[in-house]
């Protein structure tokens, strides 16, 4: 039954894809609306949600130690001893992922029907979206590394296709390519990790590997810790690429060029968390290597902090959320890095709820604002878009860590583990706590700039505008869309999004509120649930008392509240903001330009490689190798030219030479052998 989960989206992809490729794309064919393709795609993913739910229920009834469902579909490759099956295996860990992917996926598909309503090629969009779900499900369900890698690269491909969805804008196409290439750098590490695993253990199957490791951080016999560390780090390079960690995070902010539902689904809720999935899946490798753990934790914590600094100054609503995602992913890795895999996974789930909510809310805003994405040109949307406003407020509160919302539980769990676990340290906690304050600050900034205060754009009269704007070409010409609506009507006629879009927002808002209760401190269902797979949470290091836990929790709540309140105060008075910005102009400039990382990469890697390649081609291929070859040609030509003198063209001279040759030969035959 397992195979139905990825199969449904695949079928949806094939239907939509073939219909699009032959029925809609060719010149002169009728363009389809978003309705039918959207319904097909949503139905497909919903069907697989239902199956996932059934599997989950089935797992609930099983004995915790053997909680797994397996299915082998067919043998993929079999060469000598190397044997890979296309097989699925769902256990406690990935059943959560399938639920999130299909559940949140369904909501986002639904939302997309509204959002992409005026797009030119909705068939293509939904085909890609379904293909993505298929690949993502392959990723989390695969029972061995190659199958996981199949999904891993598959989601990368879909990400590429969807970021560059509006490909007529070359910048968006470039962003897609950047995402793919940066992911490929990660995959490079992933591949090396796989090779090393295979050459060390002779298998790539998760279960077999787990059995080799036995229990709790013990290493298989005859395997040196260095090898385990190398494997863990190689695989982590892959995670850096896919889950946008330093130094490979640069693609994710650019990935916002894609349609907003894509940002919500792929670049917030699901694909980017696959790195965390991989690390948790192979937790036995990481627990076996303290070095790798520290690297993961350090990279995670630093990424969380670093991305948060950038997020503070961004003007694009989606860019803020993108950096926020990078930052939150850093949290998750921090959790994994200190051994709290269940905390990491817990944050994946709550993050999927509230970040998807935030992105979809942002999409709704952008939709309502007619493709305006600059938060400095918004403001006062509270009254115009009430449903979006309220749901967005819930999302913001959740990510800020307001107590009793989902983000609070998961983030606090990570913070506590960063402090208390044997591989944690107060420094990691401190960095994470600072980040939490900054998160609260920039999210509130985003929220208040968008929804509160007075509108900072020209408001058009509402008359004659329904929720649905016939003739307004949403998505078409997207790249040049800034102020597109403003051209038609003087000012922007802000409108609330249709129910199709706000309904998923409301569901996600509810989930963002209640989603955290599965991880209630000290009674965490999720930790208990995941224990057979990722191991129990480590006992707190000695000397760390329960009271300290409460104190730290209080500190982080306080930090969040401080962040929120400061932000509200600051951004109520925008002239104050400008004054402050002027005071720290240099810092603001650096942050606004994202620490110039893109420029540095361009200068250090991209340009040199291009220049060097040119050099290789013109300077070596053409100038050296070809010259040698042509040189050989020249030599023989020269020889020919020289010898040619005797080629007089006179038959008689030829005959004479023939005669001379004959004499020579005869002479040799007579005297030569003596």
């Amino acid at each position, binding site marked *: 039954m397992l195979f139905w989960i990825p199969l449904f989206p695949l079928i949806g992809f094939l239907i939509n894809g073939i219909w699009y490729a032959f029925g809609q794309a060719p010149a002169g064919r009728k363009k389809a609306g978003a309705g039918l393709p959207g319904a097909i795609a949503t139905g497909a993913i919903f069907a697989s949600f239902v199956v996932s739910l059934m599997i989950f229920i089935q797992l609930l009834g099983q004995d915790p130690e053997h909680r797994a469902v397996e299915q082998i579909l067919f043998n993929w490759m079999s060469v000598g001893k190397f044997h890979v099956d296309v097989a699925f295996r769902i256990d406690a860990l990935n059943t959560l992922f399938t639920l999130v992917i299909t559940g949140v996926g369904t909501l986002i598909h639904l939302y997309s029907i509204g959002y992409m309503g005026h797009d030119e090629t909705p068939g293509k969009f939904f085909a890609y979206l379904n293909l993505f779900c298929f690949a993502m499900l392959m990723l989390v369900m695969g029972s061995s590394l190659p199958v996981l890698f199949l999904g891993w690269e598959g989601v990368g491909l879909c990400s590429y296709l969807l970021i560059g969805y509006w490909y007529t804008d070359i910048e968006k196409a470039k962003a897609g390519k950047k995402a793919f290439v940066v992911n490929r750098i990660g995959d490079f590490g992933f591949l090396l990790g796989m090779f090393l695993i295979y050459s060390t253990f002779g298998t790539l199957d998760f279960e077999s590997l787990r059995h080799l490791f036995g229990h709790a951080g013990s290493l298989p016999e005859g395997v040196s810790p260095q090898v385990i560390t190398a494997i863990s780090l190689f695989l982590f390079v892959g995670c850096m690429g896919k889950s946008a960690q330093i130094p490979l995070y640069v693609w994710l902010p650019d990935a916002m060029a894609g349609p907003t539902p894509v940002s919500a689904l792929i670049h917030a809720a699901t694909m980017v968390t696959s790195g965390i999935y991989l690390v948790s899946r192979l937790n036995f490798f990481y627990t076996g290597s303290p070095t790798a753990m520290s690297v993961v934790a350090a990279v995670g914590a630093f990424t969380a902090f670093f991305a948060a600094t950038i997020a503070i100054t961004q003007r694009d609503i989606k860019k803020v959320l993108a950096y926020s995602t990078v930052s939150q992913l850093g949290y998750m890795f921090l959790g994994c890095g200190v051994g709290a895999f269940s905390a990491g996974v817990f944050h994946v789930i709550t993050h999927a709820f509230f970040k998807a909510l935030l992105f979809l809310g942002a999409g709704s805003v952008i939709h309502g604002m007619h493709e305006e994405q600059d938060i400095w040109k918004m403001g006062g949307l509270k009254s115009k878009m009430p449903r979006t406003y309220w749901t967005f407020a819930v999302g913001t509160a959740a990510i800020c860590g307001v107590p009793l919302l989902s983000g609070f539980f998961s983030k606090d769990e990570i913070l506590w583990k960063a402090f208390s676990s044997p591989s944690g340290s107060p420094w990691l906690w401190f960095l994470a706590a600072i980040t939490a304050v900054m998160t609260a600050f920039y999210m509130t900034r985003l929220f208040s700039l968008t929804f509160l205060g007075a509108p900072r754009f020209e408001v058009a009269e509402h008359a004659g505008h329904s929720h649905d704007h016939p003739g307004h070409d949403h998505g078409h010409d997207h790249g040049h869309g800034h102020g597109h609506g403003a051209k038609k009507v003087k000012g922007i006629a802000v409108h609330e999004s249709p129910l199709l879009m706000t309904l998923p927002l409301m569901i996600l808002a509810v989930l963002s509120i209640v989603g955290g209760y599965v991880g209630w401190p000290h009674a965490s269902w999720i930790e208990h649930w995941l224990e057979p797979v990722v191991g129990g949470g480590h006992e707190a290091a000695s000397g760390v008392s329960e009271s300290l836990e409460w104190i730290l929790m209080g500190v982080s709540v306080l930090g969040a509240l401080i962040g929120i309140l400061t932000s509200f105060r600051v951004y109520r008075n925008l002239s104050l903001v400008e004054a402050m910005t002027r005071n720290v102009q240099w810092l603001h400039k650096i942050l606004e330009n994202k620490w110039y990382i893109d420029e540095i990469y361009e200068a250090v890697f991209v340009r040199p490689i291009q220049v060097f390649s040119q050099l290789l081609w013109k300077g070596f291929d053409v100038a050296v190798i070809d010259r040698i070859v042509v040189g050989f040609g020249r030599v023989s030509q020269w020889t020919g030219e020289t010898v040619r003198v005797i*080629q*007089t*063209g*006179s*038959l*008689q001279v030829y*005959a*004479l030479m023939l*005669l001379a040759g004959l004499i020579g030969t005869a002479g040799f035959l007579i005297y030569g052998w003596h």
Partner: protein
Amino acid sequence: MHQIEPWVVLSFCSIIFFIGFTGVLIRRNILVILMSIELMLNAVNLTFVTFSKQLNHLGGQMSVFFIITVAAAESAVGLGLVIAMFRTLRSVDTDEIQILRE
């Protein structure tokens, strides 16, 4: 009266052959060159017949028969070429016919 040794006959053939060869080398008239070639062919024919006689094998004479045929064909084509060439170049001088060179 002594016998004629085979080598005498063969040497005679060689003499005729090299006379023909020299003719090919030193004459500029293409017609004479063709005639010299006929001389060489005849010398070869005689060699064949000599061996045929000496070895009591008729293969030599058969070869001569074929050579004569081929020679006839050759001179027919050769003379045809001479006529064609003469028509184009108004000359039968090999020194003027050096198109092969370029």
